């Protein structure tokens, strides 16, 4: 018999010994802690097992699990909330605990903006031992805030023993720590902060920060370690990006009196795609120029825009007819005239308010909101086609039949109810105006859609009042009606002219439908509508009128056709076959710019008149047309004729809500240079050059 133990037994003993040694030296962790009164939150504090001898640091991880809907807060929690804290005063041999904050997100509860986190998150902690300490105890109370529509502050007792001599590295935790540190913004060179101004007058901070590689979609969070600013609230910033320069405005408020911030130091956390930085920002007193348009200017623009709507071909007939009927029935009492026009004005204004409410509701429901989106809906267009067509027919006298006497009597006895008709007329005018709003109201509407609900209502009210102004004028001074030209022979031309305007609108709207229906159906609809219109003209005004109309149409077609043919060489030269365009995606932009290409982005829609004007007047004209055809130019087009989530997102990312939208990217402008809504050849050429030029 051999006295030596068999090899397998030896290895077993060795393994057992090793195992027990390992279990003795387990890396410290509290395990998941939760409070019986507050199950939605659990926390866990654990060490990675690493030890940095130079500064006596032991890295630790504080994991937090929040059930769905619960949030906890960042170090500057916004308008409410309180950050988590760790009171470690009962610890021994601990010199300091440094808390690191991952980049937070912004949330809004009941209209109150807060900054924090949800779901599962990890705070990396750096625990510093006293010099020469070989063992320590981390003991104290961790206080976590968590809110949904209620708020809870929960205490978790923490007690961890640290024995440096038996500390073993847990590689999973070490990895998790590095991962968590990766989400913590790194301190960056504060030389990149080009400007940091505190304006005591407007209680506002203005920061300008540069980044060599430019900004994509930066987020900014402000914090201050200054005790005097502990309860100050930094508003959600208003950020503007121009190339590699970011300018942000932040309002600062305090429920007590706000101290003077000049000289105070702020910490600006900026995050962007694959980027998270922290800048130390000493504030200097100064004044902040308010270059954004003030609300009153926007309201004035809306007012004027609304007024202009009245002379658009879609609306003019409605107002014109009303005035005409007023002139013909000159005997009406001023009181009645006043009430009628006032009812119509109310109809216009309430329609605009209804549109505003609809947009607000859509936004609350999380829908993407943009002006002109109504033209992405074929049913809406079809309804408008029907309305404008019936209106045009009405102008041609198709419905001028006598009402049965019973209806007439009830209408007469209805008294004030007859103002309903005028109210509805106002609403009709507004509905008819929608096709014409896009080119004129762009600025005001874009501003409105990005603003708060109350501002949307204000701007749309201004639009409505603007459009109702001529009607209100007559309502307030019924005598102005007398200043109108006297009825006479010329009046028989008014209705047909209005009718032609209206039919043109119908034709344009019908043309929009071709994107939504099959080619055959579209042709059938167009031919059917035309024939029906002609038949009705024939029925009302006799064959003579019918032949006159057809004849007139043919003569017009002949004249236009001949003119076109005669000037053909000019037209052919000027309107070449459009280039091939690729479908717009952010990836294509990035890829092309990375390849040194210049990228021209055109977001357009068939229903957008300004877009068509840009295309015919600038994009298809030389020198722009040739420039766009060059080898180094990538042409990307986003067609917003129908709703398209990608394009809506792209527009939103560019802080705009409607078309036309054009932007040029290139090696010298990786973030793009935005072009004005109405393009000019010179501006497009310059921008193409600027984007291409190497720095």
């Amino acid at each position, binding site marked *: 018999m051999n006295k030596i133990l068999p090899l397998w037994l030896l290895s077993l003993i060795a393994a057992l010994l090793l195992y027990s040694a390992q279990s003795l030296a387990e890396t410290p962790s509290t395990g998941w802690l939760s409070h019986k009164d507050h199950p939605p939150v659990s926390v866990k504090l654990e060490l990675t097992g690493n030890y940095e001898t130079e500064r006596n640091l032991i890295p630790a991880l504080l994991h937090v699990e929040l059930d769905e809907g619960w949030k906890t807060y960042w170090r500057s*929690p916004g308008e409410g909330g309180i950050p988590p804290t760790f009171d470690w005063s009962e610890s021994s041999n601990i010199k300091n605990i440094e808390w690191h904050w991952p980049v937070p997100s912004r949330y809004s*509860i*009941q209209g109150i903006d807060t900054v924090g986190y949800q779901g599962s998150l990890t705070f990396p902690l750096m625990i510093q031992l006293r010099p020469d300490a070989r063992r320590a105890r981390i003991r104290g109370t961790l206080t976590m805030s968590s809110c949904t529509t209620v708020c809870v*502050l929960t205490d978790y007792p923490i007690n961890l023993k640290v024995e440096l001599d038996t500390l073993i590295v847990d590689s999973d935790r070490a990895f998790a720590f590095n991962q968590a540190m990766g989400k913590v913004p790194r301190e960056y060179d504060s030389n990149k902060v080009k400007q940091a101004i505190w304006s005591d007058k407007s209680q506002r901070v203005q920061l300008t920060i540069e980044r060599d590689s430019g900004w994509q979609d930066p987020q900014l969070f402000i914090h201050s370690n200054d005790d005097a600013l502990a309860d100050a609230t930094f508003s959600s910033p208003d950020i503007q990006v121009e190339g590699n320069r970011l300018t942000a405005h932040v309002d600062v408020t305090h429920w*007590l009196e706000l101290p003077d911030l000049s000289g105070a130091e702020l910490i600006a956390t900026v995050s962007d795609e694959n980027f998270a930085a922290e800048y130390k920002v000493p504030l200097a007193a100064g004044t902040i120029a308010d270059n954004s348009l003030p609300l009153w200017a926007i309201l004035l623009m809306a007012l004027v825009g609304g007024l202009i709507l009245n002379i658009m071909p879609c609306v003019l007939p409605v107002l014109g007819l009303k005035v005409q009927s007023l002139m013909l029935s000159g005997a009406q009492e001023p009181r009645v005239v006043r009430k009628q026009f006032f009812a119509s004005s109310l109809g216009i204004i309430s329609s605009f308010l209804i549109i505003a409410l609809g947009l607000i509701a859509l936004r609350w429901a999380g829908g993407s909101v943009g002006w002109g989106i109504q033209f992405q809906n074929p049913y809406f267009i079809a309804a408008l086609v029907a309305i404008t067509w019936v209106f045009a027919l009405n102008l041609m006298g198709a419905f001028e039949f006598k009402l049965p006497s019973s209806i007439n009597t009830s209408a007469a006895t209805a008294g004030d109810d007859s103002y309903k008709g005028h109210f509805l007329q106002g609403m009709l005018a507004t509905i008819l105006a929608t096709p014409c709003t896009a080119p004129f109201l762009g600025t005001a509407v874009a501003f409105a859609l990005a603003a708060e609900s109350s501002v949307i209502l204000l701007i749309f009210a201004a639009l409505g009042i603007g459009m109702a102004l001529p009607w209100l004028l007559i309502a307030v001074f019924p005598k102005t009606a007398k200043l109108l030209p006297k009825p006479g022979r010329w009046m028989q031309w008014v209705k047909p002219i209005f009718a032609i305007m209206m039919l043109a609108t119908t034709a344009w709207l019908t043309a929009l439908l071709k994107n939504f229906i099959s080619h055959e159906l579209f042709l059938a609809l167009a031919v059917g509508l035309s024939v029906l219109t002609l038949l009705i003209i024939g029925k009302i005004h006799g064959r003579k009128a019918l032949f006159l109309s057809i004849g007139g149409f043919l003569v017009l077609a002949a004249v236009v056709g001949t003119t076109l043919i005669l000037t053909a060489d000019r037209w052919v030269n000027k309107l070449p076959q459009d280039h091939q365009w690729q479908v717009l995606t952010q990836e294509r932009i990035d890829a092309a710019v990375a390849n040194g290409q210049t990228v021209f982005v055109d977001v357009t829609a068939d229903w957008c008149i300004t877009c068509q004007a840009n295309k015919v007047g600038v994009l298809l004209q030389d020198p722009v047309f040739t420039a766009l055809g060059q080898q180094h130019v990538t042409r990307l087009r986003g067609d917003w004729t129908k709703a398209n989530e990608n394009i809506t997102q792209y527009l939103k990312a560019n802080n705009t809500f409607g078309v036309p939208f054009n932007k040029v990217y290139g090696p010298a402008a990786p973030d793009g240079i935005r072009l004005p809504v109405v393009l000019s050849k010179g501006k497009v050429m310059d921008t193409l050059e600027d984007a291409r030029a190497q720095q």
Partner: protein
Amino acid sequence: MRNNKSKVSWVKRLTTAALYVLLFSTVAVVVDAFRNSDVPESVPAELSSLTDINGEQFNLREMSKDGPVVLYFWATWCPVCPAVSPTVDYAGHYYPTISVGLRSGSNEKLTQYAQAKGYEFPIVNDNLNRISSGWQVSATPTIIIIKNGDIVSATTGVTTPPGLIIRLWFHQFFK
């Protein structure tokens, strides 16, 4: 004839409206009963007497003998509370109302905060969580209605002015 008809329809409308109000208040009260089952059934003896930051004494059991009393738990750090506090402040004009500020700092800070926000209700400072833990209240905002020393209603979360008024009326007149 016509007059008669319209009278009938008015009576009908009023009855419908009254039924709706009754339905909503019943739902509100029943929901309350389930919403906060942790809260004790009556005012704990050791917590009946409260002293606010100005040193004024309140006895919840005594006060609630005459009618419903509102006890409101809130905090300066709670982002939802500013949406509810004005409602409680308003109720304070008509019903005895006492508030408990949870872990919100010193008396001085609470005074300044209430002054800045215009709250007029008395505030009891519960910076160490003693009162709220006695009441088993961990979440803010929480509104408790006390009558004859009993807790008749407890709501945590957002309460609208009509919601609170209906509860108070219900407990004043129907119970």
